[in-house]
């Protein structure tokens, strides 16, 4: 293989060619923004999001954005919000923070979106939060339970949405304290803010009951050392802060060694359709969710199996019409519920909303209830999102919620019951009563 002596002419030609590629192909500088916000016209509003559509993090999460888009299609078919149709552009970042930065900057600078909606992931989204706030782009309803989005002082444009992992851990711990006092607890958790947050919440409530806490790295294929360690510590209760794949893997190991603790699973990893799908081949004819039957879980949205709930009925209708290829599971419910929250905010922001109007609408607490069974915490000082969860149990392969929704904060605040009944879809006047 000969390597040519570097000839100056060729190198320079290369650079100029590159420059030409840029100037010609990509230079549409359309630029000047009008006096109102970019991305919004009299008839449409454009929003953008980043999400993993491919790669190891995609399973499950890749359903969320299409489901949200389906909800927007439904709202658009009814005339949109104040006459504006919602155009949702979501781009694949493969859960790679470098790609997230590039994709978000593209959405803001090139697509000139009105707001960023439902950006997914903590390691990914933390990298664009500063940029969005400096550029004064509303950063709505981050798809992650990290309490870091709740920082109105330094990030006034960023709003969380789902119940934070710490709150989940606290309420689970509180339930265990009240109903399984004295029992030994083992924790199997993902070694990032999700699992660590859940563990922090648990430790807030039941520090003395936890006898083993074993993490796994996302990407690990071997979780037997962790599960057997928890078994060796004689934990009667196993709390899983896991994504569905690892809930399933953990259960396979438990089955292998005959370990049958009382199971508690975070809502993130408890969707029976998803977990059952992964365990299908191991139960030889029995219900595929046999290994998680009877497990406790919690949620801030109505159970996706509860077809008598008007929200679930509405979501199912939209799913069947606009997103039929996807399974109707917790991820689809998540996307549609988040989309509703955006629609509610857009409506609350007035007939000619600017970006600031969106932020103000949330700060003033106008967006207070929605598909959740607990309220939002949105206020001038609180950008956290849903305030709590309700306990549930997996019965006959479906999640059935029981008891009362409980609300609290991610810190050391008290846990109280929330007694107001859930609204129906049309009650808030955001969308027509279906």
């Amino acid at each position, binding site marked *: 293989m000969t390597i040519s002596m570097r000839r100056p002419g*060729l190198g*320079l030609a290369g650079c100029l060619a590159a420059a030409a590629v840029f100037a010609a192909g990509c230079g549409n500088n359309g630029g000047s923004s009008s006096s109102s916000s970019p991305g919004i016209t009299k008839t449409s509003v454009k929003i953008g999001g980043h999400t993993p559509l491919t790669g190891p993090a*995609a399973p499950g999460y890749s359903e969320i954005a299409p489901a949200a888009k389906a909800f927007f299609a439904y709202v658009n078919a009814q005339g949109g919000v104040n006459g504006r149709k919602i155009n949702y552009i979501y781009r694949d970042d493969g859960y790679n923070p*470098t790609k997230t930065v590039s994709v978000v900057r*593209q959405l803001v600078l090139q697509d000139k979106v009105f707001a960023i909606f439902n950006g997914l992931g903590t390691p990914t989204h933390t*990298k664009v939060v500063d940029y969005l706030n400096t550029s004064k782009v509303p950063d709505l309803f981050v798809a992650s339970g990290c309490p870091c989005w709740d920082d109105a002082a330094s990030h006034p444009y960023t709003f969380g949405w789902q119940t934070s992992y710490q709150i989940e851990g606290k309420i689970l711990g509180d339930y265990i304290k009240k109903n399984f006092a004295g029992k030994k607890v083992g924790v199997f958790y993902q070694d990032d803010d999700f699992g660590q947050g859940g563990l922090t919440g648990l430790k807030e409530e039941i520090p003395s009951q936890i006898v083993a806490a074993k993490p796994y790295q996302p990407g690990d294929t071997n979780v037997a050392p962790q599960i057997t360690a928890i078994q060796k510590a004689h934990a009667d209760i196993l709390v899983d802060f896991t994504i569905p794949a690892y809930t399933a893997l953990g259960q396979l190991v438990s089955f292998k060694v005959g370990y049958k603790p009382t199971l508690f699973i975070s809502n993130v990893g408890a969707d029976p359709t998803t977990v059952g799908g992964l365990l299908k081949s191991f139960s030889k004819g029995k219900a595929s969710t046999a290994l998680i039957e009877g497990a406790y879980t919690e949620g801030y949205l109505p159970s996706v199996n509860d077809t008598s709930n008007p929200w679930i009925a509405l979501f199912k209708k939209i799913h069947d019409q606009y997103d039929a290829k996807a399974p109707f599971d917790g991820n689809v419910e998540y996307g549609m519920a988040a989309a509703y929250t955006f629609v509610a905010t857009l409506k609350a922001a007035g007939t000619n909303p600017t970006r600031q109007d969106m932020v103000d609408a949330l700060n003033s607490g106008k967006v207070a209830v929605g598909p959740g069974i607990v309220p939002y915490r949105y206020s001038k000082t609180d950008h956290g999102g849903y305030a709590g969860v309700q306990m549930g149990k997996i019965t006959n392969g479906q999640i059935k919620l029981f008891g009362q929704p409980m609300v609290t904060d991610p810190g050391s605040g008290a846990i109280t019951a929330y007694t107001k009944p859930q609204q129906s879809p049309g009650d808030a006047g955001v969308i027509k009563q279906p």
Partner: protein
Amino acid sequence: MRLARLLDRTLVRNLLLTAAIAVVLLFVSLAITPFNNLRLASIAYYFTALAGLTVLTGLNGQISLGHGALMAVGAYTVAILVGRDGWALVPALVAATVVTAAIGSVLGVVAARLRGPYLAGATLAFAVGLPGLADRYPHAFGGENGLIIPPPQPPAGLGSAFPLERWEAWIACATALIAFLALSNLQRSRVGRAMRAVRDDEVAAQLAGLDVARTQVTAFIVSAACAGLGGGALAVVTQLAAPGAFTLVLSLSLLTGIVLGGLGSLPGALWGAIALVMLPSWSDDIANSFSLSTDVQSNLPLALYGVVLMGVIVAAPEGIQGAVRRLGRRLRPRSSMSHEEAA
């Protein structure tokens, strides 16, 4: 007469060339949109890393699957020094280069004993293993979330409307130009010739008196320094250092870049950098222009990328620069052919 003799000296020629390229880049950067400045910055930091890697693999014949992890070292160094300890940008980038070069020297000593697929395997293990440190020492390295760097503010003299992206492009291009200058000189120097000799025939080189191991290690150090500088620039441009940004996929992309662009040549590194940045967005655009089912649409860019990789290797194994060179040879008059062959 004196001017001609001056131009004969490699260093002077390369300095002039670098300056010329710098001027071109300045004008380009001023003319394009902020988002395209971001792309320019990305091309620049990829070029820095690719240039080093192409010297290692093309000039010296060692295959490394671990340069993504070396970029991570540079990025984290800058992130810690600038973000946590408040260092200024330039000293931090210098530190990133030095630290990564040091790690490169260790890697080089290990690599000097290995050949071919065994070297590939060792560097692969390095690429996969090193990011694990971030999880092992979350306090130092921020765990899965990584570290954030405050954006580099353009100096006040440029005006308040100066886009951040343009300033980032300038920083990244500056590092790329430094790498370009250094490597251009290296290629024509005694060290460069030693590297080529070792690549072509190790036994003959040793018989000729070259210290093979030392040459291998030097090549590793140089390429690691470039990877570190590129990684530092990446950290500045994207304002982050996180394990998810430095997976094995990055190392493999770098390898892809140098082969696509043309192994062993600096213009090849530039083509590779352009390909790495523009190919995904072009294939994204193509995919979005059809309205397909979600599964097909989200995977189409990857499928296109795979097809392009295979196609280029089969049809143009010497990469884009090889094709350009062939074209140039065909267009140029015969008399200058002999000069071209002397490599």
